[in-house]
């Protein structure tokens, strides 16, 4: 077995667990393939037959509407059979272990698992346990990784800015609790982005974040200066333990994206947000709905990127 648990013996992608350590060619191949899938959704028949006969199980141990729905649409547009496991009605709530659940689904001939779990490493655990012809996609594990979100963010940036060389990308807000930020930083580094910045209060930045190859700013106005891309993160109230912040209003004043702060970035800077947004907290409505916002195209591209990942894994 190769050193990277995501790669098969020939170096091809067989699971997608994290972007960390992935070769640049694999990420570029996913983004290029996604480009070809964008057109599929504009046709009379919005499906291709690639994954006919393959069963994709959406295992969501943690709530998510957008990610689960876009994975479901992606799998259906590839002609896969999709089974959504609603965890509140599943055996997990009756005490069945994660791996017992996986064994049972494997006995039902599951070919692909899309896993969202509050525990970091859950998708890795399932991938190690899975059979040789099964594929696992991490749809978000704890604070660790959300690789398809990182890929769709990279796709969106490439779509609007064409090249990564020469770009300044600012990621703003709750970096500490954000698997989205971590995955995007890995993607940007691998794709050769020279200037990646994280902006947030000390309490919402992980210690040693500089080691990820980013520049750290506590003053948002300084951090946004000359940025080509601004990625706003959601203030994750449900993940906050203890008083890391004075109040949402206070946060908005210092780290909310308002029109006057946006004006400090380049005039053609794009504004991204993984959703769901807290309007008036991390982003003002006038910015979220403004001409520089590409927040809704991100959702559309997300389907094409997930189709690309599934079609590459399914054929490996």
């Amino acid at each position, binding site marked *: 077995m190769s050193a990277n648990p995501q790669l098969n013996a020939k170096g*091809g992608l067989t699971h997608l667990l994290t972007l960390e350590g992935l070769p640049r060619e694999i990420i570029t*191949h996913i983004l*290029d*393939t996604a*480009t*070809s899938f*964008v*057109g*599929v959704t504009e*046709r*009379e*028949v919005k*499906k*291709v*037959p*690639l994954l006919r006969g393959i069963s994709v199980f959406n295992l969501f141990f943690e709530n998510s509407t957008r990610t689960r729905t876009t994975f479901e649409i992606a799998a259906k547009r590839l002609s896969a059979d999709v089974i959504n496991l609603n965890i509140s009605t599943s055996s997990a709530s009756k005490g069945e272990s994660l791996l017992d659940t996986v064994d049972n689904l494997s006995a039902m001939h599951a070919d692909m698992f899309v896993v969202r779990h509050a525990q970091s490493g859950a998708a890795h655990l399932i991938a190690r346990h899975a059979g040789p012809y099964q594929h696992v996609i991490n749809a978000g594990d704890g604070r660790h990784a959300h690789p398809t979100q990182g890929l769709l963010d990279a796709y969106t940036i490439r779509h609007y800015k064409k090249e990564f060389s020469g770009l300044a990308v600012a990621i703003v807000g709750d970096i500490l609790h954000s698997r989205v930020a971590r995955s995007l930083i890995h993607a940007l580094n691998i794709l050769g982005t020279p200037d990646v910045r994280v902006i947030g209060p000390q309490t919402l930045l992980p210690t040693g974040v500089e080691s990820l190859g980013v520049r750290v700013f506590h003053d948002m106005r300084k951090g946004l200066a000359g940025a080509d891309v601004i990625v706003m993160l959601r203030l994750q109230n449900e993940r906050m333990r203890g008083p890391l912040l004075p109040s949402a209003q206070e946060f908005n004043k210092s780290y909310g994206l308002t029109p006057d702060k946006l004006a400090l970035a380049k005039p053609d800077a794009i504004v991204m947000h993984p959703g769901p947004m807290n309007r008036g907290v991390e982003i003002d409505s006038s910015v979220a709905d403004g001409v520089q916002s590409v927040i809704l195209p991100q959702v559309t591209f997300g389907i094409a990127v997930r189709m690309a990942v599934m*079609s*590459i894994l*399914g*054929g*490996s």
Partner: protein
Amino acid sequence: MQLPDAETLCADLVRQLRPHVTPETGMVGIHTGGAWLAERLHQELGFVVPLGMLDISFYRDDYRKSGLHKSVRASKIPFDVNGRHLLLVDDVLYTGRTVRAAMNELFDYGRPETIQLAALVDRGERQLPICAQYVGTNLTVPKGRMLRLDRDASGRLTLRIDA
């Protein structure tokens, strides 16, 4: 082995096709060699309807065996295929599997009135009941060798055999 001149074959295809082209005929090339040939035919025959391109990677029958192709380009059909007479263009007609995949993809854009096939070279060895209406030449190529079309910087087409 001595390969025929692709430019001569292309000119011959133009002669064969000319009486059958109407202002409503649509042309679709299959990536990559078929797309190059289609670009030439489309221009020289003065097609009115813009040229369509197919990358059949998402319709291949060997996906489960060989996986997704390393470089996938976007398919683009910039016209309504419903009720239209279509001319499908590929460089080399061989097993017929590529044409099968291309026809399946075309039907996901709508229901064409007819589909006809033009190929620069027909090398036989069909595995499916498919034939071309317009052929530049028939050629026997040793099994397992790949016959390919190349295009140089000046746009000149040549045939080549890969090991």
